[in-house]
């Protein structure tokens, strides 16, 4: 009796928490499907969740009013580039630090550990000044390169590779493989979880990037989604249905990714906590 009561209380708590977590998302999705004029007046009523008649008008409006496809492409391209380049560059450095004997290793490792402390916000202003002086705004590169080499990613790879069993690499070495071949043929295939975790973490931290693209993009050409929605939000005419529809379209691809690869997302985030 007491046991089943305790279980009921647990479910009740979980359900209440879930309702609070989901409500904002539900209001967003439902608002996106309602005629513009009804979004704000009904936002505080039950019709915010149970709209009755639905329409796809807002989505058509957004596609007509903004270059949504371009913003989506920009975001996907920039983030794919950061993740892919980052995996290559940071894993190589992590491997060299974890497994190779070389002059300068100690200094580089100390440097990486020291830079772990510096959050991006601490360098945004001088970096903005630097790239502006170099005439380097409004490009994909300026949104990709500063985020490719990442001290935290290097550190994560370094700890992952330290845990890899040495026998595999020994075998490759006996076969006469150098560091590069060993890395490509042995380390990469055997460290897939490490790569997946770092990829997920990089993506999660970069996907929502707002401050930097806000400072270095002027026109829509290379503007990513997070800045695009903030811009759309302040651009007349202010239509809440359209804004929410923009939001739904913007988060849908990531939610889909998340639902498909949920295990990796959770493992990646958990890994950051355990290693950190």
């Amino acid at each position, binding site marked *: 009796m007491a046991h089943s009561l305790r279980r009921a209380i647990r479910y009740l708590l979980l359900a209440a928490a879930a309702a609070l977590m989901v409500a904002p998302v539900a209001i967003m999705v439902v608002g996106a499907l309602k005629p513009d004029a009804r979004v704000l007046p009904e936002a505080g009523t039950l019709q915010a969740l149970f709209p009755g008649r639905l329409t796809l008008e807002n989505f058509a409006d957004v596609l007509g009013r903004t270059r949504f496809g371009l913003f989506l492409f920009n975001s996907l391209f920039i983030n794919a580039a950061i993740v892919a380049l980052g995996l290559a560059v940071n894993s190589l450095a992590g491997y060299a630090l974890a497994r190779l004997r070389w002059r300068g290793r100690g200094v580089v490792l100390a*440097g990486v550990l020291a830079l772990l402390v510096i959050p991006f916000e601490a360098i*945004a202003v001088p970096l903005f000044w630097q790239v502006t002086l170099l005439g380097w705004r409004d490009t994909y590169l300026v949104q990709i390169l500063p985020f490719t080499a990442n001290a935290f990613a290097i550190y994560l790879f370094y700890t992952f590779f330290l845990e890899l069993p040495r026998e595999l690499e020994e075998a490759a070495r006996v076969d006469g493989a150098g560091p590069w071949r060993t890395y490509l043929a042995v380390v990469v295939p055997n460290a897939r979880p490490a790569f997946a975790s770092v990829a997920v973490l990089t993506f999660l931290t970069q996907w929502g990037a707002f401050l930097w693209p806000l400072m270095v993009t002027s026109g829509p050409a290379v503007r990513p989604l997070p800045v695009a929605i903030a811009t759309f939000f302040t651009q007349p005419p202010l239509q809440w249905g359209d804004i929410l529809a923009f939001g739904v379209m913007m988060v849908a691809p990531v939610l889909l990714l998340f639902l498909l690869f949920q295990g990796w997302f959770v493992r990646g985030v958990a890994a950051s906590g355990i290693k950190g």
Partner: protein
Amino acid sequence: MPRPLTDQTPAAWSMAAPAVAGLALFVGLPFLVAFGLAFTSARLGSPLPVEFLGWEQFRRILADPAFLRALANNGLFAMVVVPLQTVLALGLALLLNQPLRGLPLFRTLFFMPVVFPMSLVAVVWVLLYAPGGTGPVNAFLGWLSFGAWSPRDFLHDPAWALPAIMLTSIWQGVGFQMVILLAGLQAIPAERYEAAAIDGAGGWGQFLHVTLPGLRNTLIFVVVVTSILAFRLFDQVRIMTQGGPGEASATVIYAAVRAAFERQQVARGAAMTVVFFLIVLAVTLLQRRLLRQER
């Protein structure tokens, strides 16, 4: 023919070079530049020559009530959000760390806001905080208090702007902390709980003597990451309140970006950035000391 154990310096440098160059150019160099700029009069696009000003920029920002208020806001934000979010995340993690059916679904729902870009979250919450009875948050509080709640304009009310941003931030971030703590919980060996049960510890005793000590490092990590996040606060402020009313929700990074980007006062922004970095450094060093005192 196995390779002899030799010095691998050339290969190692070829592997590490891209990362080292990237970190040097995009983290190390701007970091040095920030310190350099903070001691000058540099302004974007000014035809006047740049002068060396010594500590003048620091003197000015530390004498500026607006900046001090921004610093205090960051501190307040950390003091409220860090314990609250950690406790909530721990509560959710404990609820999920049970043999119950349907848990993966709940985990998905709690984690879902984490994949929402903060700028989108901020825009949606502007609607949720709409003033008057039509605002969802106002309506919900009215329903919860059987009509005793009088509707407020949260984002334009000096007393409510920062708390409103806190709630939004917790909503978006709690799932992240929860997942980390859940992993920490699952890493605690079951034998410890069994041993504690044999010693006669109840549920609460097990939590105090097994769960908390087992989570020690994970908790320290979560607290430190959340504290640093609290000082990095920018997106929500910029989109939801623009730092207002007055300076009620201004933050250090928001002030720095405003100075450097909107008012072209790069040197002033750099000085604020340096102050921000020193705070983050202090928090991190504190964490390392705590971790070193372990056992």
